[in-house]
């Protein structure tokens, strides 16, 4: 009986399943296959063209003793943590502000979301000019009379990451705000009414009732923002090209430079495999909690 029912289910809805075949094949061949190929070839000494000369973990040893790679990882962690905390906090606060039934909400929403319509290349170039001491903020403030004012983050190795962060936040918070606003609007009016009847202050309603109810929105946002952080590349290329020195390098730039400029595919593959591993370390526990937990419950 059980056997027959399973077969039945497999043959049900055939049209949809056939329609999904191309996508499944693409996923298997391009994504999974490409990933597997990259991992396998990271154990070779491939230069410009891939070749099967196995060298074990040599590429990884070289990678983890390279100061530029270590700087990249450190930068990514600092940028990642700050970017996650600030985009989500600022995004949520903006969404709450938007949710107070203000006038011209549409106008404000458009303004806030506008930076997201620009590519990272444009964002990077714009902020490169704004933060440039000769043309940007420093120049304007000095023009207003504060002669000793210095604000030059992009040429200071200790501050350059924050220069990138400003540009990243400017670009990304509007989008997070929209996601959060959608989440807030999805909360039933009756819950607000009930909270008001019980005399709970507004801020307490947000923190203790609305926030927990918005968990799915937060998780979606987290995944989107985190994926954007790990693949961070174009913003850095446009704004600082990794400089000054190697102070704002990120892993994706290392991968590109070693695969194509240094003509050392093996090294680039090893670096991209490490990036994949980073993603998996973040993703697997989350997926387990999200999907694994629900089945039992």
């Amino acid at each position, binding site marked *: 009986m059980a056997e027959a029912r399973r077969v039945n289910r497999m043959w049900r809805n055939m049209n949809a399943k056939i329609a999904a075949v191309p996508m499944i094949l693409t996923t298997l061949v391009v994504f999974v296959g490409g990933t597997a190929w990259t991992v396998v070839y990271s154990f070779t000494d491939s230069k410009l063209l891939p070749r099967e000369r196995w060298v074990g973990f040599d590429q990884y040893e070289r990678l983890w003793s390279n100061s530029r790679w270590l700087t990249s990882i450190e930068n990514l962690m600092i940028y990642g943590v700050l970017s996650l905390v600030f985009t989500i906090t600022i995004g949520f606060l903006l969404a709450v502000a938007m949710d107070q039934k203000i006038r011209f909400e549409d106008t404000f929403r458009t303004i806030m979301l506008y930076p997201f319509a620009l590519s990272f290349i444009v964002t990077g170039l714009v902020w490169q000019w704004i933060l440039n001491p000769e043309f940007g903020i420093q120049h304007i403030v000095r023009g207003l009379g504060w002669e000793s004012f210095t604000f030059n983050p992009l040429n200071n190795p200790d501050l350059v990451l924050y220069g990138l962060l400003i540009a990243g936040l400017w670009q990304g918070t509007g989008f997070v705000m929209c996601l959060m606003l959608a989440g807030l609007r999805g909360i039933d009016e009756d819950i607000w009414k009930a909270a008001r009847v019980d005399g709970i202050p507004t801020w307490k309603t947000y923190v203790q009732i609305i926030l927990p109810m918005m968990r799915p929105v937060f998780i979606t946002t987290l995944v989107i923002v985190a994926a954007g952080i790990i693949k961070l590349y174009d913003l850095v290329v446009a704004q600082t090209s990794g*400089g000054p020195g*190697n102070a704002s390098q990120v892993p994706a730039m290392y991968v590109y430079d070693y695969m194509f*400029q240094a003509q050392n595919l093996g090294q680039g593959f090893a670096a991209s495999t490490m990036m994949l591993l980073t993603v998996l370390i973040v993703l697997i526990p989350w997926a387990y909690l999200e999907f694994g937990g629900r089945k039992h419950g």
Partner: protein
Amino acid sequence: MKPFKLAAALAASVALPSAGLATDLEVTHWWTSGGEAAAVAELAKAFNAAGDNWVDGAIAGGGSTARPIMISRITGGDPMGATQFNHGQQALELVEAGLMLDLTDVAEAEGWKDKVFPPSLLEACTVDGRIYCAPVNIHSPEWLWLSNKAYADAGLPVPTNWTEFVESGPALEAAGKIPLALGNQAWQSNLAFNAITVAVAGLDVWKQVNVEKNMEVAAGPEMAAVFAAVGDARKLAAKSTVQDWNQATNLVLSGEAGGQIMGDWAQGEFSVAEKVAGTDYTCLPGLGLNAYLSTGGDAFYFPKNDDAEVEAAQKRLAALLVSPEVQVAFNLKKGSLPIRGDIDLAAANDCMKKGLEVLASGNLVPSGDMSWSPDVVKQNEDLMVEFFRTDMAPDAAHAQWVSNLESGL
């Protein structure tokens, strides 16, 4: 009858255009600054005048941006008609994989072997006895460009060598100038390092390290002195915040910076701005210490193509690039040195003449591009840009540099 006629008409329409008409050849290169673009226009003009059609495929952003695009087009099965590389190891694997057209017959017909000077340029095009590229100019990166205006403003004499330049640094800085203009891109830091190596350590050490690949010399006291000298340069360049090399050259042009270490292509920017060598700016080959120049250069490679017409046009272009007239026209605009010893550059300016003298005297060293793989070059670039922009200790940089070289042995 009808299908036959149609087929005949179709065949005729295909056959006709190929008879004696111009062939389009797409040429990719990274020559996009003012002086460079003017030089490329000379090549295009000569090729078009010979009856073919030059389709310009300039890629902005310098060689490190352009080369990955070129390589992925060639390996991805979308080859262009011809493409620039720095000859040496950059295209070596493409040649070994059989992706490049063999130009040996052109070279023999045109007698390149006797005419190309110095011969190392043609050797760099040769793989297993076959010739795969047409050299077009000589790059010599070991030049110090000085702004006469900056020194006049500061009330100082224009230095005649690197040592004087370093000594004049503090006085120049006190006069509100940047002593040494240096773009932030990694390859520029590495170029400055190599130029200082040739100047400070001299030819013998350079050859032992880069040609014989003697790692004991690389780790020895002569190179330690070079790293100390680069440490001096780093202090002078601390206030320079530009990115591209031509922005740095522009600082020298306008007198905001004292000098710049850059290849002879900087000359093109000076001539576009109509500055006169000797009065507006001064050039010191080999930084004025050791008048040696390394003879790397640009060459054109011709990716293999199925179309016989295109192949014929590729060979025509290869012959044209090395011909005396094109060499003169191109190199005068670019400010670089020609690859043949048998032509007269009467119109050459002060700086080019200095370069030609060095060339004629035979004070030449092979360039790093020819002896080290792109992987080693990239690692050194990463190291140098870090060294120039942080307070990394010279001996730490020295040790890292030696291990970078060892990875390429």
